[in-house]
């Protein structure tokens, strides 16, 4: 009796879907691995770009080459279906390393892109989200050091993060985590095509899922100091460079009489002294003023952070945080902290 049961069990195992005995399968053994996905929109339609590495085991002597596939539709699913309609095998999104968001993507489409990436379990949550003017141009670029532009971009972000000290925090789960927490402001690394090829050229600021502004590389460092997303790196003030480590960033406010936002940064660094701190405070103040003037709203996320950390702020100004910000002055203080 036992042998019969075991035999039935072994037979059942062969019915698992992992064994697909499709005819001609050995003759057409191509794999379409997606290294990066790009999204661009004109408002009504979404265009999806898939940088695909075609691996063909029939001709292993040929180097796998990236190819950019494109599809458009009224929904993201439709766009992907258009791409897959011309392929003999489904796309393998499991190794997608980059999600590139074009400059034309509206807030509504950004939300739908995030929902799609969250619901589609093939796209790993640790894919990097980036911003660019044109995903088509960026992902068509010939890769310099890896098999696909998407993997080059991953390498650039990781390398630049350690050299600049900026926590880009732009992996999909990090961005989605901020959005789910109710944060209205987040940043994506901005990539551009220059004479040197694919270049990390600063940060794109998003507020309520809408692209609000861009920061140069130097401003991105200052911005990261303000948001606390900085570890240790080089800060340029004028023509001078200082090696700085951010120990902590404290956020506070007053609303008795005059509304004021306070930012206190505790820093360490070999060449750090009171003069440098004063210059840094001026640069940070200048940046904040410029961002306030150009965007007209809080694009640093001060009110989000205050709502999170100060219950009384949330109770008093949670609903009119934007108005509070517009009517408040900004004060930043850089203090030299002990330690290395």
């Amino acid at each position, binding site marked *: 009796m036992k042998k019969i049961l075991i035999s039935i*069990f072994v037979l*059942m195992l062969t019915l698992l879907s992992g064994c697909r005995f499709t005819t001609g399968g050995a003759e057409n053994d191509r794999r379409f691995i997606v290294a990066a996905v790009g999204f661009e929109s004109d408002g009504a339609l979404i265009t999806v770009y898939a940088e695909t590495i075609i691996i063909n085991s029939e001709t292993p002597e040929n180097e796998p080459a990236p190819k950019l596939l494109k599809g458009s539709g009224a929904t993201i699913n439709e766009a992907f279906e258009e791409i897959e309609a011309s392929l003999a095998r489904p796309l393998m999104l499991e190794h997608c390393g980059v999600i590139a968001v074009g400059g034309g993507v509206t807030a509504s489409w950004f939300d739908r892109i995030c929902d799609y990436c*969250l619901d589609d379990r093939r796209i790993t949550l640790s894919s990097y989200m980036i911003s660019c003017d044109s995903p088509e141009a960026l992902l068509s670029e010939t890769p310099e050091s890896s098999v696909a532009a998407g993997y080059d971009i991953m390498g650039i972000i990781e390398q630049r993060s350690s050299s600049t000290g900026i926590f880009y925090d732009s992996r999909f789960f990090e961005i989605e985590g901020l959005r789910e927490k109710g944060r209205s402001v987040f940043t994506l690394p901005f990539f551009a095509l220059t004479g040197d090829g694919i270049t990390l050229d600063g940060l794109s600021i998003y507020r309520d899922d809408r692209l609000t502004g861009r920061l140069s590389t130097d401003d991105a460092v200052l911005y990261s100091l303000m948001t606390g997303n900085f570890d240790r790196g080089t800060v340029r003030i004028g023509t001078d460079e200082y090696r700085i480590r951010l120990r902590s960033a404290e956020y506070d406010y007053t609303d008795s009489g005059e509304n004021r936002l306070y930012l206190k940064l505790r820093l360490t660094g070999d060449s750090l002294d009171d003069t440098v701190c004063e210059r840094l405070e001026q640069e940070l103040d200048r940046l904040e003023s410029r961002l306030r003037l150009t965007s007209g709203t809080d694009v640093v996320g001060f009110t989000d952070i205050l709502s999170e950390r100060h219950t009384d702020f949330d109770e008093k100004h949670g609903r009119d945080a934007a108005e509070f910000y517009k009517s408040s002055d900004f004060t930043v203080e850089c203090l030299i902290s002990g330690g290395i």
Partner: protein
Amino acid sequence: MRAEKISPKHLAALAAVFILGDSVIVLPPPDSGKFVFWGFLLSIAAAAAVFFAAVPVSSLIAGAETAGAVRRAVCVPLLAAAAFYSFYGAGLALKRYMGFVDRVLLPDTQRFFIAFIFIFLAAVLASRRKDVISKLSLIFIVISAITVVLFFALSVKDFRRENIAVYRLPEFSELIGEAIPCFFTVSLPAALIPVYTSLLYGETKKGASFAGLSAGLALVGLCLVECLLLFGAPLSANLDFPLASAVSTVTVGPLFTRMDGLVYCLFFGTALIKTSFCMKLCFYALSHLKNALRRNRGEQKK
């Protein structure tokens, strides 16, 4: 006939894997808020309370068959409740694991075949000698503990302290709201552990069972904290299978970029052992219940 004995380490391992069960698949629970960790801490305390409350009850029902009429009258509904709840536990573990398999592991496969294979395996395990499931648990708890601790250590570089930072304490109503789903997932099942040992081995073995319960809760807690530190409470609540998603973000060098398979084995093992545990307990509870009712009828005829 001498009562079978179970070694303390086997019992502790069994209790730990049972608590891991389907909790690691679903925690943090959906729709949980930012105080879910506090709710989980409260549910740990509740698990201990439920466990110790169940110890005297399990001693009571273990001797139901040979007890007097009054004690039997008390034990019959308790045995029925134990049988029902363990059957429910088996079904829930099966349902959660099948949900995971259907949506993540083998989305293109017919559910029936997967469920059949799983139930068949669980039934075979439950029908074997009592020590088979406990010996399997001993092997599996070592693998589970290594897997959980390893993934926690590999995820540390991506942790964000602000995801678990406390800026205000939760209000009582918020705390209870967060604790309730955790209570039903990890605390209430703790009551079945002393019932299992009483019905199968005739003694509760509080020490080993509690050690296993504590180890299981610690591992579940580690999984929960990993998800919260990586994703934050709101995103964790939005994910269908938070630990599976957390593990998918772990990379080791350029080669090991998708290590999800290891946690899939963890889910399979814990769900299988919990289902078998519950099936075995249900069988024994029904068997004791049947004998108690037969004795009741016999005494009534006299």
